[in-house]
Structures are given as structure tokens and as C-alpha cells.
């Protein structure tokens, strides 16, 4: 049995992945909300903070609200402003 809860896995896309120089990271996580997660990601990667402020957060295959709880081991995606079409 692991002593620590599993980390949250964060996936980055497009210009945000480019700015960060990586497409994913793992954050040690003992619980918190989507808003808490934003602060943790911004602290871990200051280069993406401006774009992060304009981004949505997805938990699994849906968009999440700021006050939603993020479970340990969750798959989180940062969704910067979109430009499909």
C-alpha cells in the first residue's frame, strides 16, 4: 500500500504545452478544488500562468467548475482558449 495518495496527472495542449516545454506533469495532491489546482499549476509552471488564467479545466471528459473537488489520482486537462474550425 502506498503511503501517499497518487498524484494528479495534468495534461497540457497546443501553445500551453509549447510554453511549458512539456505536455504533462504530475502534481503531488492531498485534496483540494479545481481553483486550488489552478494555483498549484501556476506555481509549478509560471510560464503558463497568463494563459492558464484564460483556460478552462477538464476533469476526465468534461469541463469542471472552480469549486469542484479534485480527487487524488485524477486526470486533469488544462484547456486554453480554443481555435478549431
Amino acid at each position, binding site marked *: 500500500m502506498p503511503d501517499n495518495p497518487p498524484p494528479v496527472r495534468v*495534461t497540457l*495542449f*497546443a*501553445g*500551453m504545452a*509549447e510554453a511549458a516545454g512539456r505536455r504533462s506533469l504530475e502534481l503531488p495532491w492531498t485534496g483540494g478544488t479545481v481553483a486550488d489546482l489552478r494555483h498549484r499549476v501556476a506555481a509549478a509552471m509560471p510560464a503558463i500562468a497568463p*494563459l492558464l488564467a*484564460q483556460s478552462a479545466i*477538464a476533469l476526465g*471528459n*468534461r*469541463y469542471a467548475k472552480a469549486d469542484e473537488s479534485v480527487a487524488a489520482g485524477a486526470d486533469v*486537462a488544462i*484547456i*486554453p*482558449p*480554443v*481555435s*478549431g*474550425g
Partner: protein
Amino acid sequence: MHSPAPVFHPGADEAVTLTRGPLDTAAVLAAVSDPAAGGNVLFVGTARSVTADITTSRLEYEAHEPLAHAMLAALLAEARRRFSLAGCAAAHRLGVVEPGEASVAVAASAPHRPAAFAATEWLMAEIKREVPIWKCEHRPDGSHTWVHSDPNTPPPETHHE
């Protein structure tokens, strides 16, 4: 008159496809064929080589694929309800798209054409507003820019029209 064989993700409720190959726009239109429909509209967005005096040598698209697929399916279901459609379908290409090639296609069918036109326009606006797909503009000098327009300002229509 007859329903075509399922061409997108057999088993899915809605006709959504994300593909790295060329878009089969005829198949997108065929997917909305319905004997109850008198108006069938297909919109095809193609990669444009010049935007605001900037030459683009090619486009590249990336997506959060499971979320994009789920959101496209939800938008089709909403369009079907909102415009009382007989059918609707959407396809988006990912990866490199050369100028003139199709990057997106949406189709809608309805008893009469106004609903089919309105539905395709609404679907395109929603796709550009909230589906997690991103475009990268590659220029002839080798530089590139991922497009992340501010959602709080009107979209600058960087791609179509």
C-alpha cells in the same frame, strides 16, 4: 431515401468524427440523409493561405480528443433538439492541413431549409467557441503560432470567410 451505412464511429449516438486523414465531406452530408428532410446543408471549412496579410503555409490542429468528441456529440444532440433537425453530423481534421483542404465539416437536415442553414451556422459558432481543438499557423519562414484567442473578446475570424 435509405439511411446510409454508419460511417462515423459505429455505435455512437451521434455522427462525430475526428480524423488525421482527409475529411470525407460527402460522407458527412450523406450521414444526415433522411426521408423526412427537404433541406440538407453541408458547411465545409477549408484552410486558408492568407489571413490579415499574413501568409500561412499550412495549418496544424490538435485536440483533447475524448473531450472534443464528447462535446461535439453533445452539440449535435443540442442542435437536433433546438432546430428540430432530421439529422446532423460533424467532422474535424487533426494534424497538418494544407491550404485548400477541408479542416471541418458540419451537415444538418430538416424538413425545410431555414432550420438546416441556422443549425449549421449555430454548430460552427459553438465548435469555434467551446470544443477543445487548437489551430497552429505555420508560416513560410518556418515560424509558427498556436492560436489562443481571448474568449472574452469577439473571435477575430482567423480562419473562415
